[in-house]
């Protein structure tokens, strides 16, 4: 069993509009999976279906190869985008309550909570009411109760919103550690830099449909524009003249005197080797690097072309 989670043709309609129109995604076991898409694309609806908060109108969801069932709830940890706790309840009491709802035994929950509270150095909050905590503090508590029962699949909806940089790193490290220990993580966001940093696989949802999926490398390769960056010493004019065989200069900058960094686009029927053969007699090449598009570029490009066709 390679995929921990598969959705097949999931459809969900609300009165008047379609939230998901036949969405299929596959989340490999042990991966960090980015579920991407602009606001209102249907990410949250999909996540709610995986969490059995809402039911799909049609389509199936398989967890470890089985149709979703009640017992699966305890295998999933879910941190919603809009989060909150009972304001009047004491922190420790509340964590125990939520942990038990997830199916943990009281003693087990208590021991693990103590462990986490000590790890995050927040044991002194145990008997405080949630309303006495700052927003960042409450977020930490919320993260703990999400991962406490050691779920196989962790679903984090915009997990870093509301965290300061220090806590963001703390949480990021925890996510990476848990992933190394075998937890699969679905990471829903529109913050592309964090996707590039931690995700291996992605799916992009727009207008209720999946428009893109695969590993980050695959996606980048699909979107690459055959652009290369060449660093050379020599005259720019000589360089440009040498390129005439087909590649075109997109931009250039002079780093030092006669030391340039140029971005070029190579046509499909040509290759970097051809370009090098052409320019080697004229300039001194210091480096050649393929330019891959950033996830941010891909995101914007995919969505704007999808919106045009839609």
């Amino acid at each position: 069993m390679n995929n921990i989670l598969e959705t097949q043709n999931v459809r969900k309609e609300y009165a008047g509009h379609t939230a998901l129109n036949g969405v299929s995604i596959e989340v490999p076991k042990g991966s960090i999976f980015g579920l991407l898409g602009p606001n209102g694309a249907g990410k949250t609806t999909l996540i709610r279906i995986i969490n059995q908060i809402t039911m799909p109108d049609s389509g199936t969801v398989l967890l470890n190869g089985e149709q979703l069932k009640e017992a699966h709830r305890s295998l999933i940890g879910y941190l919603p985008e809009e989060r909150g706790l009972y304001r009047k309840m004491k922190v420790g009491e509340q964590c125990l309550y939520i942990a038990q709802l997830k199916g943990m035994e009281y003693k087990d929950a208590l021991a693990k909570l103590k462990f986490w509270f000590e790890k995050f150095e927040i044991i002194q909050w145990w008997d405080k009411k949630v309303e006495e905590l700052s927003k960042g503090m409450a977020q930490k508590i919320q993260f703990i109760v999400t991962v406490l029962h050691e779920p196989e699949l962790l679903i984090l909806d915009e997990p870093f919103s509301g965290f300061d940089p220090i806590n963001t790193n703390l949480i990021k490290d925890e996510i990476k550690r848990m992933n190394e220990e075998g937890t699969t993580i679905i990471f829903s966001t529109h913050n592309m830099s964090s996707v590039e940093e931690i995700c291996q696989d992605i799916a992009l949802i727009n207008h209720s449909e999946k428009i893109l999926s695969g590993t980050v490398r695959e996606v980048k390769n699909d979107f690459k524009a055959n652009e290369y960056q060449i660093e050379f010493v020599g005259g720019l004019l000589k360089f440009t003249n040498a390129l005439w065989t087909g590649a075109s200069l997109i931009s250039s900058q002079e780093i030092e005197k006669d030391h340039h960094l140029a971005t070029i686009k190579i046509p499909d029927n040509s290759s970097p080797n051809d370009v090098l053969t052409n320019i080697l007699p004229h300039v001194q090449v210091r480096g050649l690097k393929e330019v891959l598009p950033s996830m941010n570029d891909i995101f914007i490009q995919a969505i704007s072309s999808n919106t045009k066709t839609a």
Partner: protein
Amino acid sequence: MDKIWLIIKREYLTRVKKKSFIIMTLLGPFLMALAIALITYLGMSDSGPQNILVVDDMAPVFDRLEDGSNYKFDYSDMDLADAKKLFSESEYTAILWIPEIMDGERSSRPFLYFKEQPSGRVIRSVEGKIEKVIEEMKMAKYGIAKSDYDKVRTNLTIATYKFTDEGEEEEVRTEKTLVGFGFGLLIFFFIMMYGIQVMRGVVEEKTNRIIEVIISSVKPFQLMMGKILGIAMVGLTQFILWVILMFTFVSVTQTVLMSQKDEAMLNQMEQVQTVQQMQSGEIAGADDFNPFDLTDPDNLINRINWPFMIGLFIFYFIGGYLLYAALFAAIGAAVDNETDTQQFLFPVMIPLYIAYMLSSLMIENPESPASFWGSIIPFTSPIVMLVRASMGIDSAEYWQLALSVILLIAGFIGTTWIAAKIYRVGILMYGKKVSYKELWKWIRFH
């Protein structure tokens, strides 16, 4: 099933541990008794001593009017027109005008002009004083001796008995329906108080956004029922503690009174009573009892079928509460904050208020068709049936009780079913003003 217990436990414990709950439970019965006593006192007490100027056109016939406990008479030679002119500046609170033809033979009435309305008791007392003078006048005129008059004078009240199929005869008293009304009122308040708590709880979970975490762990229906049942147990706990407190109070008072009640005191009390009755011109009925004498086996508190009433109360409280609490939960789910609840609260409250008004009318007229239907229909039966039951339910009416019970059970299953549908959709819906049309869609399509 484990999970619903966890929810019930949380809902119950967080509320029972609150200071406000403990204070309300301990002080509730005393505050209630105090409120009732205060209302009765204010309703019965007079505004202040009355100073009445008597304009007697038949002087000196009415010079003999005795002052009352709360008012006194003054006499003047003025005629009515002059008295009226001086009235507003004078210290008199009222003018009593006795026209010339007040001899009891011709039809005429005395007039009372007042600045502020005297209480009904003062007016009745003044009437009594005038009647007495006229009676004496007539006795003198027709040559009737005072002793003869006292012998023929009669005063009675009808003793009312209900005839049942068992051949038993049971006395019906307004006091009994009052007890039923008390129970009904308690259910009315419990449903309102705890129903609103359910609604608040739902709104709270929705606005602080914990809802999504919880319903990723449990089904929405489990959360809704857990909340409703947990809060029901808070209500029952409060009620049971109140019953215990009240019965302790009553039995302590009874034992204390029993030990003090010796012959001498009894005699003294009876003498005092007789004197009072003679003074007010009343003759005691045979079955008259003192409602404050807890040692009297005929006393109201000892004549109600308490186990039956408390059993019914608990059933109708739970049934009525479940019926309404589901609707309150649905309202909480349909709105984003408490201020938006008003438009939906209104139609839910209406049947409750109707039941309340119906049962207050039933104190006077316990067996009208309205009270029959009110005690059958599930939206009003939790309150109305208790008023009916307080008078006792005979075997011929058992089917009505059974029907009412069955309909109430069907009723709360129905409202819970509808509410669950609204709840499931509503708790995840934000930033949208929901209309009735929208709610109907939720019920139909989800």
